[in-house]
């Protein structure tokens, strides 16, 4: 057989856990090979072993049939292995070319020969249909483009085997589509790809074969043509998984949130929300669909008090809360699961228990006359951790040490527990695995059924369509359409999100 | 495994510590017996504590240390305990510790160099009544302390005469360290000396606020020279080294230009040498010498002979050879003129014909004749 990469019986231990146990991964030349597993299953560890960042305790790695020892990333590079990281490793103020040549600069008499490099970058970009401007600065280009720069970086270094680590997590539907095209081009040009993912749809769409790992153990490799998403999901999770979110019909009641003619400027002082109207009632979930950068972030920040708005009104249960401080908004009955849980949702260096009272620490019984009552805090935390199935060694463990899914569960537990009239959930399942997504969707629907209003923002159309009772499409800072998820299609939503005037859909 | 290794290392370290400690103790005991059994009375030892300037400040502290060294070699003492030694202070907080340390090491006489040590000498002299102390540049009224003052104004007066006789631009500068009575004596004397020769000469006075900042001295000198001064005198310790650097730099750039400096405390002429086109020049006219070295030796000697002038305040002036003016630089064209004038004023001061003002208030009422 013609394998470019063979990882045979790999075992990698960390103090206390076995991250990889006897995993075998064989990648054929010219195929897109998926590496599927839940968060924490050991995908990244395995790839870091291949990329030379970790040394395996057992097992053998062969590249093109030859046994190799990869002790650092430079060796991996020399062997033609390139990694497109999930978190881009780019220097923002540098140009595309400067980023690409970083670490392997071509010099001419001690000076960097940027011209030659630019030409080479251009050539590669053209060959693989990447359409990247070699002179653009990273800070000026979109996330999707930045990812292409990462791809270019590996190609520039002569990579034959590209590892993509969760490449679609940060992309819009359009960008995902383009990325898939790029992958196909790469294969056509003779490259091989390992795609790390937990998204079954993508695997079905582009991959040839898929290797599944669960809890550090290799479950097996199957041909994509011979399987289906349900089988893959059960292989990955180890039990039957339902895809359709089950929910009863919504019964919306009184209006909880009323936004009228809201205007907000973004960080650069440019208008981001331009006269937006939106109403959410008790007992319904309104999903916001839109391409990233159409004012979603500013809208949520304006509601939660993190950003001052220019004009308009935001009524919560009939009372004006526009330009309240975040604390007053919270106290008025708004819960917020933030988009970026590391940046906004948690103080990662605090114990997870203390994160559970991030908004309420100053209230009784957690604080008495300015003195914290840790007994009460941790009692509360323990209760939430149990109730929301947050898997953590203890409530004293730093939040940083928890997996993404468990961090998110902790945040949701905290927000839901405050019993807010309006729960804002921004990308609540980003980067999470099937099991955690299922759990979180259930919790959101539970809130709705308890008569709360829920505002869901997501870039995953599937999620928006599955969970929402109504979908509000945002485009250039305005709600351009409200559609019923049962009566719309992904195509229609996509068009609306791209700004095409809404015709007769929905109503 | 790891634990055992660590244990081994620990015990080795402890063992080493014990052995070394034992050696240390042994040494001490030997010295102790030598001191006790031997000639304790006749064995005179002397030490000094510098201020933050240190013994290589090319000025005040250095001068004192040279005095001690000279005294030591004259009397066959060795540097170290039981002979002569110094301790350098890194901050104001170290004065007391250093003085105390020397007292504890049984030095017979301990000098505190500089008025900054006054408070600590005072306190420790009260505590260590058996030890003799000397304080330079200030007065401590304790029976076991001798206070040493200088009539800096007299040397500075002569420096002023030399400066006034040298300047072509009729513009002279004075750089002080920190404002204090001592530096004020320098300033008042210097100004009086200039005034005595030519009251119309313009004098720039600037205090840098520090005794150990050569960069400040250089900047100040640069500013004065560029505004037209051609002679600058400093009473700023290490800060003054910046003056010499600036003067030499200017001289190098333009060898024809008249650029002069006057040193302080000791004969600083060595600092003024600059080589231009293979020829040596010296930018230092002379130095207002303060006989710290002389005073330290003098008191050490008296003390060794059993005549420690405890409780006294000794004032060293021109008459006592405590202050003086260093020889005049050969390159100064008016050398002979200066020497004559200096001789004349020296006699007047020694005879008591005039009293050189020691403060700016006195200067205001001062009239040369």
């Amino acid at each position: 057989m013609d394998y470019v990469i063979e990882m045979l019986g790999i075992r990698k231990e960390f103090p206390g856990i076995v991250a990889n146990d006897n995993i075998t991964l064989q990648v054929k030349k010219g195929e897109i090979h998926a590496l599927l597993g839940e968060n924490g299953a050991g995908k990244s560890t395995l790839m870091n072993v291949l990329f030379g960042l970790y040394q395996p305790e057992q097992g053998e790695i062969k590249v093109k049939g030859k046994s190799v020892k990869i002790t650092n990333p430079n060796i991996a590079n020399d062997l033609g292995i390139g990694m497109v990281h999930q978190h881009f490793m780019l220097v923002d103020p540098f140009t595309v070319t400067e980023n690409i040549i970083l670490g392997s600069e071509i010099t001419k008499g001690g000076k960097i020969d940027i011209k030659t490099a630019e030409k080479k970058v251009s050539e590669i970009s053209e060959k693989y249909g990447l359409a990247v401007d070699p002179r653009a600065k990273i800070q000026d280009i979109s996330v999707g483009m930045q990812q292409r720069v990462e791809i270019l970086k590996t190609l520039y270094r002569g990579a034959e085997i590209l590892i993509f680590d969760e490449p679609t997590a940060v992309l819009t539907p359009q960008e995902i589509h383009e990325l898939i095209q790029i992958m196909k081009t790469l294969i056509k040009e003779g490259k091989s790809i390992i795609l790390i993912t937990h998204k079954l749809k993508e695997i079905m769409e582009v991959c040839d074969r898929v290797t599944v790992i669960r809890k550090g153990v290799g479950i097996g490799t199957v041909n994509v043509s011979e399987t289906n998403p349900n089988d893959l999901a059960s292989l990955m999770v180890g039990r039957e998984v339902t895809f359709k979110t089950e929910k009863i019909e919504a019964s919306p009641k009184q209006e909880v949130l009323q936004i009228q003619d809201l205007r907000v400027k973004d960080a650069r002082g440019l208008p981001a929300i331009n006269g937006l109207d939106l109403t959410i009632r008790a007992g319904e979930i309104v999903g916001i669909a839109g391409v990233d950068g159409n004012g979603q972030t500013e809208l949520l920040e304006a509601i939660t008090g993190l950003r001052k708005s220019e004009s308009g009104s935001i009524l919560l249960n009939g009372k004006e809360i526009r330009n309240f401080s975040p604390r007053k908004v919270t106290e008025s009955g708004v819960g917020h699961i933030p988009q970026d849980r590391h940046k906004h949702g948690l103080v990662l260096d605090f114990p997870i228990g203390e994160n559970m009272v991030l908004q309420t620490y100053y209230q009784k019984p957690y604080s008495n006359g300015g003195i914290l009552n840790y007994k009460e805090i941790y009692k509360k935390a323990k209760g939430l951790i149990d109730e929301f199935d947050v898997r953590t060694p203890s409530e004293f463990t730093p939040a940083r040490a928890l997996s993404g899914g468990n961090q998110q569960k902790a945040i949701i537990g905290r927000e839901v527990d405050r019993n807010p009239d309006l729960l804002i959930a921004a990308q609540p399942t980003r980067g999470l695995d099937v099991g955690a997504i299922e759990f979180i969707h259930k919790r959101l629907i539970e809130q709705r059924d308890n008569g709360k209003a829920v505002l869901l923002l997501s870039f995953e159309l599937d999620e928006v369509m599955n969970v929402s009772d109504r979908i509000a499409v945002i485009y250039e800072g305005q709600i351009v359409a409200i559609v019923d998820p049962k009566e719309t299609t992904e195509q229609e939503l996509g068009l609306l999100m791209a700004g095409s005037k809404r015709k007769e859909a929905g109503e | 495994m790891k634990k055992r290794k660590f244990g081994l290392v620990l015990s080795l370290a402890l063992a080493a510590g014990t052995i070394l400690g034992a050696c240390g103790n042994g040494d001490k005991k030997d010295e102790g017996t030598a001191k006790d059994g031997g000639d304790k009375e006749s064995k005179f030892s002397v030490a000094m504590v510098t201020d933050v300037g240190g013994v290589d400040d090319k000025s005040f502290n250095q001068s004192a240390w040279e005095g001690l060294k000279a005294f030591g070699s004259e009397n066959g003492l060795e540097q170290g305990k039981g002979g002569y030694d110094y301790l350098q202070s890194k901050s104001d907080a170290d004065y007391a510790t250093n003085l105390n340390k020397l007292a504890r090491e049984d030095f017979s006489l301990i000098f505190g160099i500089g008025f900054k040590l006054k408070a600590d000498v005072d306190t420790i002299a009260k505590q260590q009544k058996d030890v003799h102390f000397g304080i330079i540049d200030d007065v401590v009224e304790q029976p076991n302390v001798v206070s040493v003052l200088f009539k800096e104004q007299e040397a500075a007066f002569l420096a002023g005469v030399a400066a006034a006789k040298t300047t072509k631009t009729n513009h002279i500068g004075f750089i002080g360290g920190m404002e204090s009575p001592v530096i004020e004596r320098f300033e008042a004397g210097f100004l009086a000396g200039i005034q005595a020769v030519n009251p119309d000469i313009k004098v720039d006075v600037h205090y840098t606020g520090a005794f150990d900042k050569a960069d400040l001295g250089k900047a100040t000198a640069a500013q004065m020279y560029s505004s037209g001064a051609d002679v600058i005198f400093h009473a700023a310790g290490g800060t003054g080294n910046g003056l010499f650097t600036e003067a030499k730099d200017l001289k190098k750039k333009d060898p024809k230009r008249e650029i002069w400096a006057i040193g302080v405390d000791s004969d600083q002429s060595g600092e003024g040498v600059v080589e231009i086109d293979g020829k040596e020049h010296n930018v230092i006219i002379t130095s207002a010498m303060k006989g710290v070295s002389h005073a330290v030796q003098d008191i050490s000697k008296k003390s060794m002979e059993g005549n420690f002038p405890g409780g006294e305040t000794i004032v060293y002036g021109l008459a006592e050879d405590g202050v003086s003016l260093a020889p005049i630089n050969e390159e100064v064209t008016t050398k002979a003129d200066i020497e004559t004038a200096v001789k004349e004023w020296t006699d007047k001061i020694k005879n008591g014909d005039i009293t050189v003002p020691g403060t700016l208030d006195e200067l205001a009422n001062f009239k040369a004749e």
Partner: protein
Amino acid sequence: MSSRMKNIIVPILAVLLGIIVGTIIMLITGYDAGAAFIALWDGAFGDIYYTGETIRQVTPYILAGLAVGFAFKTGLFNIGVEGQLIVGWLAAVWVGVAFELPKFIHLPLAVLAAAAAGALWAFIPGLLKAKFRVHEVIVTIMMNYIALHVANYIIRTVLSEKSDRTADVFPSASLRSPFLEGLTDYSRLHWGIIVALICVFIMWFILEKTSRGYELKAVGFNQHASEYAGMSVKSNIILSMVISGAFAGLAGAMEGLGTFGYASIRGGFTGVGFDGIAVALLGGNTPIGIILAAVLFGSLKVGALNMPLEAGVPNELVDIIIALIVFFVAASYMIRIFIDRIGKKGAK
């Protein structure tokens, strides 16, 4: 190796490394390293007098370390401890010489004046940081110079008549203690060490026990999350600087009311404020760590004075050895990596 264990071992290794490299240098330059280190030890603890002096030196170090550490916990780098110390020193002495009151009023008043002055001096950079995002490092550095020269000016013109120092503070405002001096054979040990230890407790209490401390730490770790959670980042930044400055001001009171008993014109900085940065770093910004680090720095500082006389090591070399120890402490990151390597190999 657990991180707790590492936090203890790393500083110890740093000190050992400093000693080893120092030994090598002394051997190369022909000095007796054994004698030198014994002199260092003896100079710090060899005699009750030296022990007293060491504790005296440790006192302001603890407070300066607390000042740096406290600000650091809130994500601020207060490099202006030196200036806050100087104004604290001045304020304490000012109150100490201006009037005479019963001791139980006068002494606390002088100490509090120092804390208030330091707090005020730190409030300015805190305010500028919070309101205008001016970086606190730059402002505090400049405030150091302002403090130095303003203090010099006030001492010369207001607190004395053109003299280089103020009068001694009245005994009713002095931290000095004949009892402690007697106990330690006339060292300058004073009651300030009690103040410093109380402040250690205060820092611990604020940070670990109060909801305010919870906020301060949260802001330090993650400003975005704190803002999201409804905390005022701005007021916490200012408060953090103010508390930090108060500690620094108290360090000044230790010098003004304890060690010296007066304030004098300075040509340059005391260095205590800057050493406080190293103390806080070495102590990992934790209260107990800061005490231990202050003891180390204090004993190095006092013990080193003994090295020239006892072991004949020149001052310059002493400075180099002390600097080496500080260097290895500051470079403890290196040591951490090293331990990790060894740990990995050991695990294999």
